[in-house]
């Protein structure tokens, strides 16, 4: 043939228009450019100007077009007509739906607001939904943090005013050694990939600590295939090595942490283990200038790490002495922990030594003067260029809170938090526990709750207990069972409501939470609880209202469905009052707006709450004349005032000289201003305020100006968390408010004010000889939670999930490709396909989370691979620990925060016959939306 090339148009029109909004395909919240053709979504790419993703976009984000057009989208409000769980519904009008909801909710609010349990899943509007629940008056509100990563969040806040992801990030541009613990290929998604790309391009090193070597760990320079649940032990062994060698940042510890604060060491004193305080209540240190007591924050004070203080026969020693006593103990020597961690002792030493080498020999300095809160001027910023990141892998254990605390302690003794090259906070964080609200739970019929639901407890007096000492909340958050449950315990709501413990409820109202499937432990049990009837033939959980955009597994179990929009059809605000999207060098927030209008009879859930709130006459949702205050969510976003000058969006507020960031009056044109700016707002942290944020007056003053808080509030890192000691002291018998007897010993152990390690609580009730294998899940980078649908493009990447088995077990059991296995725990068993993986901890099996689907859900064919070969590990995990014979219900959760201990699971594995499909196979639910088309040929342009 000839060489005549066809004429190509290499400059075709790309689209008619680009609309910039925020992705919702995972919790990362990247900026996206939505290319429109003929009024339809034609292509989605990353927004180059956006602070989160700077133009890049992951597989999920690019597949958003298939989510937006998914056949599983709900079309209209639904009323259940068959039995619960059948999936039989009839479509009703919005007026009927809202009348029905009001009919259920109004009498509850009038008499017993606590009989409404309102829990939202992975939504991004918790400051709004919480405000709604507060107006309703129920104490029973939380979002999904309890079954996700509250250990990470709470340990971070209590220890240093923030943890990772929304709170902080490695200094990607300067760090020289990055150690990544327990991140299941997400949390957060694009920023970590971008960061890894950056450090690799600079030739910096990365160490992955994870039982599984996939994803980020696959590209790490060094991989530490740790045994699940032993991260805390490994970390404290490194703390041991570093302290023993004196490789700690003494200047940093003395100035910026409570290592120098004095503790009462008299076991007979009521104050045993508490800080020595002055008359103003300020913790005391010894000032090296004078050798005398001084408040930690006194002007010019130079806190002494070593000096002790004795008065009235009581010795007070600084926190650092206690740390030395504890962590220099042989208990934490590498040899003592190596076998349990599955890491040779010399490897632990080498990793600790490498941290020391980089932190101290490769320190970096920036010529940026700054002033600390004691008035001391620093000419330079000194950086320890080692950084860390961690998420669910270390936190979803019953020892997760203390493990996360241990990691923060390691970061802090190296002097690597909020310094160049270390870990950096993202405004409006850092924010210490003392700057957060306390939890509120006081119910008044017909009136609002006495304050925001979720917060941070500082001692037994802050627990939410009634006069008999019973938990105020249905999930038992802020009770002695888990005193610091800062995100609630969503995973216990259905179980407790069904058991009527601590009390029965009337209506369960949930949003975007697949609680009858992958978001619950004990899936079959949950189905029974949701469908169980009492002697009179009534459902034990009388009413269930649910809002979702898609035909998820949970839909079938609700009585009334309020169909939500897709993320391209709605208003949202990614608010500083909620889970912010800022960067270490900038404060930012963002919106979603309807880049297309829904073509179905659906409404944004938050707009529905504005309507419902008004119908119920709730404070905050009605005007003085009783009329509806916010016509929809956009109206709320624009006009709601949380504190003077502070609303849901911090950008483009009305100032005297035009739009301004931070504080300002309501700007009626605010949403349009965001749209015109690409869907987000950003303002940079001044250079001299960019590091040492908790201690820097330069930062503190800027933070007040921006409205993060109203007065400067410098603080020091809490290596020793005094509130933990207060709960521990109560367990020892000190104080008025006392825990129940059965919890005393556990509280004494787990509420230790300095980080400790203890084995998984479930191990006490499991025969580890019979169930020796750890079982985990990860979430693939190209697929997320069941908060969206099973996406037609992404399901071709992850359409089913084998159980990955390490070489040792693979060979022991004689597995071959194509085999199936029976996997059992003390709670149940599953039969699933297996696959070999060599790059895996030798005693760990794992699978992808939430790929398995129930037949009939998500508009998939009943023969879909997700339903026939896909499976959930959830069937093997119970929300309660194995019974101890005491008749009590012990939650399978961290005893400090209530975090669901998903990753404590132990199993045994045996070769199985090949079944027709993965077991347990549950009956199909009837799809309220039918099935998706057989063939797709997607192109919207002509």
């Amino acid at each position, binding site marked *: 043939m000839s*060489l005549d090339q066809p004429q190509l148009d290499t400059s*075709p029109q790309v689209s008619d228009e680009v609309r910039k909004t925020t992705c919702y395909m995972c919790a990362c919240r990247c900026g996206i450019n939505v290319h429109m053709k003929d009024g339809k979504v034609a292509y989605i*790419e990353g927004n180059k100007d956006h602070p989160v993703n700077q133009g890049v976009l992951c597989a999920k984000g690019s597949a958003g077009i298939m989510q937006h057009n998914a056949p599983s989208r709900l079309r209209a409000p639904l009323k259940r007509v068959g039995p619960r769980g059948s999936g039989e519904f009839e479509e009703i009008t919005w007026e009927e739906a809202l009348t029905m909801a009001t009919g259920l909710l109004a009498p509850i609010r009038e008499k017993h607001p606590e009989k409404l349990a309102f829990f939202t899943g992975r939504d991004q509007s918790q400051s709004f939904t919480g405000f709604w629940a507060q107006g309703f008056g129920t104490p029973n509100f939380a979002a999904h943090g309890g079954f996700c990563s509250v250990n990470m969040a709470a340990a971070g806040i209590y220890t240093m005013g923030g943890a990772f992801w929304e709170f902080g990030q490695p200094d990607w541009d300067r760090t020289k050694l990055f150690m990544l613990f327990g991140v299941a290929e997400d949390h957060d998604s694009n920023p970590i990939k971008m960061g890894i790309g950056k450090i690799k391009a600079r030739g910096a090193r990365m160490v992955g600590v994870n039982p599984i070597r996939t994803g980020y760990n696959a590209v790490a320079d060094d991989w530490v295939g740790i045994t699940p649940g032993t991260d805390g032990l490994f970390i404290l062994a490194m703390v041991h090595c570093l302290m023993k*060698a004196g490789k700690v940042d003494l200047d940093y510890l003395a100035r910026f942490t409570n290592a120098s604060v004095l503790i009462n060491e008299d076991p007979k004193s009521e104050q045993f283990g508490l800080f020595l305080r002055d008359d103003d209540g300020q913790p005391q240190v010894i000032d090296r200038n004078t050798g005398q007591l001084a408040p930690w924050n006194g002007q010019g004070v130079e806190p002494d790490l070593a000096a002790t203080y004795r008065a009235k026969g009581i010795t007070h020693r600084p926190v650092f002495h206690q740390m030395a*006593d504890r962590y220099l103990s042989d208990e934490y020597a590498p040899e003592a922990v190596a076998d349990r961690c599955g890491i040779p002792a010399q490897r632990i030493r080498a990793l600790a030594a490498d941290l020391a080498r980089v932190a101290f020999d490769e320190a970096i300095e920036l010529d940026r003067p700054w002033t600390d809160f004691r008035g001391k001027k620093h000419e330079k910023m000194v950086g320890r260029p080692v950084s860390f990141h961690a998420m669910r892998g270390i936190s979803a254990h019953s020892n997760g809170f203390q493990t996360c605390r241990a990691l923060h302690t390691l970061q802090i003794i190296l002097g690597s938090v909020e310094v160049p090259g270390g870990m950096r906070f993202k405004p409006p964080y850092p924010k210490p526990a003392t700057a957060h609200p306390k939890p509120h739970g006081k119910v008044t019929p017909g009136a609002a709750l006495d304050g925001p639901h979720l917060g941070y407890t500082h001692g037994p007096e802050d627990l939410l207990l009634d006069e008999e000492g019973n938990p105020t909340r249905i999930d038992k958050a802020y009770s002695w069972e888990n005193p610091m449950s800062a995100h609630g315990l969503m995973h216990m709501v259905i179980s407790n409501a069904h058991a009527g413990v601590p009390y029965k409820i009337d209506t369960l109202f949930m949003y975007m939470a697949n609680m009858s499937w992958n978001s619950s432990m004990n899936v079959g049990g949950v189905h029974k609880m949701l469908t169980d009837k009492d002697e009179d033939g009534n459902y034990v959980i009388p009413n269930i209202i649910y809002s979702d955009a898609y035909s998820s597994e949970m839909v079938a179990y609700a009585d009334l469905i309020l169909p939500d929009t897709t993320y391209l059809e709605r208003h949202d605000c990614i608010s500083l009052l909620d889970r912010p999207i800022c960067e270490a060098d900038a404060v930012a927030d963002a919106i979603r707006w309807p880049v297309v209008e829904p073509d179905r009879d659906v409404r944004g859930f938050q707009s529905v709450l504005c309507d419902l709130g008004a119908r119920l006459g709730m404070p905050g949702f009605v005007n003085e004349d009783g009329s509806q205050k916010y016509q929809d969510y956009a109206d709320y976003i624009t006009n709601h005032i949380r504190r003077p000058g502070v609303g849901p969006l911090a950008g483009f507020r009305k100032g005297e000289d035009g739009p301004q960031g931070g504080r300002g009056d309501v700007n009626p044109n605010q949403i349009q201003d965001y749209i015109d700016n690409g869907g987000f707002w950003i303002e940079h942290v001044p250079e001299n305020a960019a590091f040492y944020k908790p201690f820097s007056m330069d930062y503190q003053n800027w933070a007040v100006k921006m409205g993060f808080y109203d007065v400067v509030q410098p603080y020091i890192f809490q290596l020793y968390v005094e509130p933990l000691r207060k709960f521990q002291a109560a367990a020892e018998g000190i104080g008025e408010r006392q825990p129940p007897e059965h919890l005393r010993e556990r509280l004494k152990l787990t509420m230790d004010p300095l980080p400790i390690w203890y084995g998984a609580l479930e191990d006490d009730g499991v025969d580890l000889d019979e169930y020796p294998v750890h079982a985990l899940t990860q979430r693939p980078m190209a697929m997320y939670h069941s908060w969206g649908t099973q996406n037609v493009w992404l399901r071709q990447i992850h359409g089913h999930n084998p159980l990955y088995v390490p070489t040792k077990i693979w060979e022991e059991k004689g597995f071959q490709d194509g085999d199936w296995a029976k996997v059992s725990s003390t709670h149940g068993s599953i039969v699933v396909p297996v696959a070999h993986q060599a790059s895996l901890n030798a005693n760990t099996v794992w699978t992808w989370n939430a790929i398995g689907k129930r037949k009939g859900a998500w508009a998939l064919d009943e023969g879909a691979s997700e339903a026939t070969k896909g499976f959930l590990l959830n069937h093997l995990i119970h929300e309660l620990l194995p019974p101890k014979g005491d008749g009590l219900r012990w939650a399978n959760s961290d005893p400090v925060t209530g975090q669901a201990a998903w990753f404590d699971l132990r199993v045994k594995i045996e070769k199985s016959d090949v079944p027709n499909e993965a077991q347990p196979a549950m009956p199909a639910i009837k799809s309220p939306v039918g099935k998706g088309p057989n063939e797709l040929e997607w192109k919207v342009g002509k």
Partner: protein
Amino acid sequence: MTQLPPPSAKKLGLVIDLDTCVGCHACVVSCKGWNTENYGAPLSDQDAYGANPSGTFLNRVHSYEVQPDQGEAQLIHFPKSCLHCEDAPCVTVCPTGASYKRAEDGIVLVNESDCIGCGLCAWACPYGARELDAKEGVMKKCTLCVDRIYNENLPEEDRQPACVRTCPAGARHFGDLGDENSDVSKLVAERGGFDLMPEQGTKPVNKYLPPRPKDEMPEFDILAPYLEPIASDGKGFVGWLDKALSSLPGGAK
């Protein structure tokens, strides 16, 4: 049979960094999104919501485990699309001239209006980089986003393949591998970029950068000085602390 043009001076292609690729499939889906909407027929999906969904993709990521003789197993993510070979067997095998290599920049394309869907090119390609679209019956392959890279309707910074623009880890690079001074050529030189299956004689333009050696942290012996003990217990530590503090600035009392 179709003739190849004389080798072009400009050789546009991709450089893919196997050390940095985390296997996230961002490139796969971004490619699917752009190319179903743009060049030629859409990339269709069969049994889309059924038991065995199967669609057309121009770029896929494969993952391979490597078990070194010594040490831990490793996992390598390997994205693969058309390598725009200089001696492209998919072009010379084409009976209609539909498959061609552009004279000006070396991009290998399929002119869909001349493609009869015979599949010979896919058989000839040793990399398995072409997919016959089941709905349209035409051969689909990576176009190097020829409708992006010169597109005057796009801002200049966006004139790169969709997969490169979207890659979160920055593992994909686009440029002229015929120009030894281009950023991509320098990257290949610095990092020892290699050809995929050079023995096939296809002279691929795309290059891969090898993973850096892994698990090579120094033994503890070399690092031991960093952990030289200063104390054996808490008491000893406090003694050391007193001395250490007095040597800090302002410490002399």
